């Protein structure tokens, strides 16, 4: 966990106001593990005031990438960054996915921008394990397959792939999951994570989800990011205890 002033080395629009920004940040690159995030200062002034959290999307050598969607002022500022600009990044933060425990097939479930942490995770899955990526979006233009392998797609409006949500797609392709011992890694909007949790509990799959919450600090000092614990009284902090949790630990 450090703060660096990283130089932007690339920024590309993947389409539909989704951007990929790549920065030169050797120390963060070295320390990071998939599922962790960084808290990024998106302006040089006090407006917007707070940093903005983004999953680490990819690490290549000394370079770290983030994938983001232009939603408000903060991400709009980020989208205006140019190659050579400096970006003030605090990270890596939180706990990532456990990708080296006991399973044969890694199943990724991504809803919309939930795809962000998976390119990094995909590259880290140990040799010899199988990969399956279930990717959902509202419409064809919302599907993000960047950096992912063996993709199965769903859209709410049926413009591409399976018509329905990504958990319905999982259910429909359930036979693919029966072949081996699987572990599910999910990231996306909370309602999707809730459905994934239910699905995994039903079939007894091991599952980790990457959660989201409004954040101020991102590293445990403000207590702004509670998530209700399932295995104890009270709350976990998304930024410090998460953002990745096993589904048995949290109420979604």
């Amino acid at each position, binding site marked *: *966990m*450090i*703060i660096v002033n990283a130089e932007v080395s690339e920024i590309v629009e993947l389409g539909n106001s989704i951007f990929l920004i790549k920065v030169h940040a050797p120390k963060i690159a070295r320390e990071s593990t998939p599922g962790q995030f960084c808290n990024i*200062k998106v302006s040089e002034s*006090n*407006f*917007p*005031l*707070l*940093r903005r959290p983004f999953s680490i999307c990819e690490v290549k050598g000394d370079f770290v990438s983030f994938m983001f969607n232009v939603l408000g002022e903060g991400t709009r500022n980020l989208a205006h960054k140019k190659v050579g600009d400096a970006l003030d990044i*605090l990270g890596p933060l939180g706990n990532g996915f456990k990708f080296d425990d006991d399973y044969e097939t890694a199943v990724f479930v991504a809803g919309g921008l939930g795809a962000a942490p998976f390119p990094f995770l995909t590259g880290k899955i140990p040799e010899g394990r199988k990969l399956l990526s279930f990717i959902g979006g509202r419409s064809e233009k919302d599907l993000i397959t960047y950096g992912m392998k063996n993709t199965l797609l769903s859209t709410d409006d049926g413009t591409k792939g399976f018509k329905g949500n990504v958990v319905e797609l999982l259910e429909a392709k359930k036979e693919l999951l029966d072949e081996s011992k699987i572990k599910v890694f999910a990231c996306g909007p909370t309602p999707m994570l809730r459905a994934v949790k239910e699905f995994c509990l039903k079939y007894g799959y091991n599952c980790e989800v990457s959660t989201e*919450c*409004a*954040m*101020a*600090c*991102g*590293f*445990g*000092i*403000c*207590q*702004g*990011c*509670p*998530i*209700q614990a399932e295995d104890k*009284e*009270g*709350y976990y902090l998304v930024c*410090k205890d998460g953002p990745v949790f096993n589904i048995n630990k949290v109420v979604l």
Partner: protein
Amino acid sequence: MTKKDVENVETTVDLSVKIGSMKLKNPVMLASGTVGYGNEISNLTDLNRIGAVVTKSVSLKPRKGNPPQRIVETASGMLNAIGLANVGVEEFIRTKIPFLRQFDTNIVCNIAASSIDEYVECTRMISPEETIKAFEINISCPNVKEGGLMFGHDLKAVAEITRRVKAVTDKPVIIKLSPNVSDIAAFAKVVSEEGGDAVSAINTLVGTSFNIYTRRPKIFNVTGGLSGPAIKPVALAKVLEIKRKVDIPIIGIGGIMNWQDAAEFMIVGATAFEIGTVNFINPNAGVEISDGLWEYCRKMNIRKISDLTGSYVI
């Protein structure tokens, strides 16, 4: 420092200040609730270079805090309603104090309570701990029913809290005032009369924010406390008001982002100051502010930063 500076002893600046019997190496204090118990932030800044660290409000029993959403950003500010999530006095003494002991800074214990007896009891329990150098009594948390806000708006209660807390500890007692009152100086006066060592001002302003599509409050607690640069002008006016009317050391708080803001608070009357929200954005802000003030004093020929306190020209 350049060689010339080192040669010239005249350029040395004394940044130390005193709050009651507590001596701070510099006037920078980290505000309650914005650095937890020091653990996480110590990875990102050097706490040995900070005048004092104020702990997250501790209450007699642990509190789990409010359900999400607890925070929301506003224009140049943020609302929070954490709900005084904290580990409780026992755990605080058992696990938090030992960690804090390692730092060469003053640890100020901030206490929240839902009754006057509870304030007294917490202080009494923690007072023997050598690591704790002073108490800050939070009579002004706007985010839980029993967070003290009703005390903070009641002169008699503030008088009683000050008197009774002072009676159970020899350490300096700082009363943290609510800004959500008509006449903040009246509260400072009561604290002074009852022997309080200092007041800190301000805690957050009550605010809210709603989602216009769901028509629901953005934070679970409906209202929250507004902090950050947005409140700086209000905080400065409160500090000035107290300074002009009451003779008691003031710890200035509210929207400080850099050394310029900190100097402004000292000029209007603060002996020391606390930084809160800025820690979330720049965890090293305290050290940078200390360095900035040193340089400012040197350039302005201010030998002792305590000369800056209340040096406004009106």
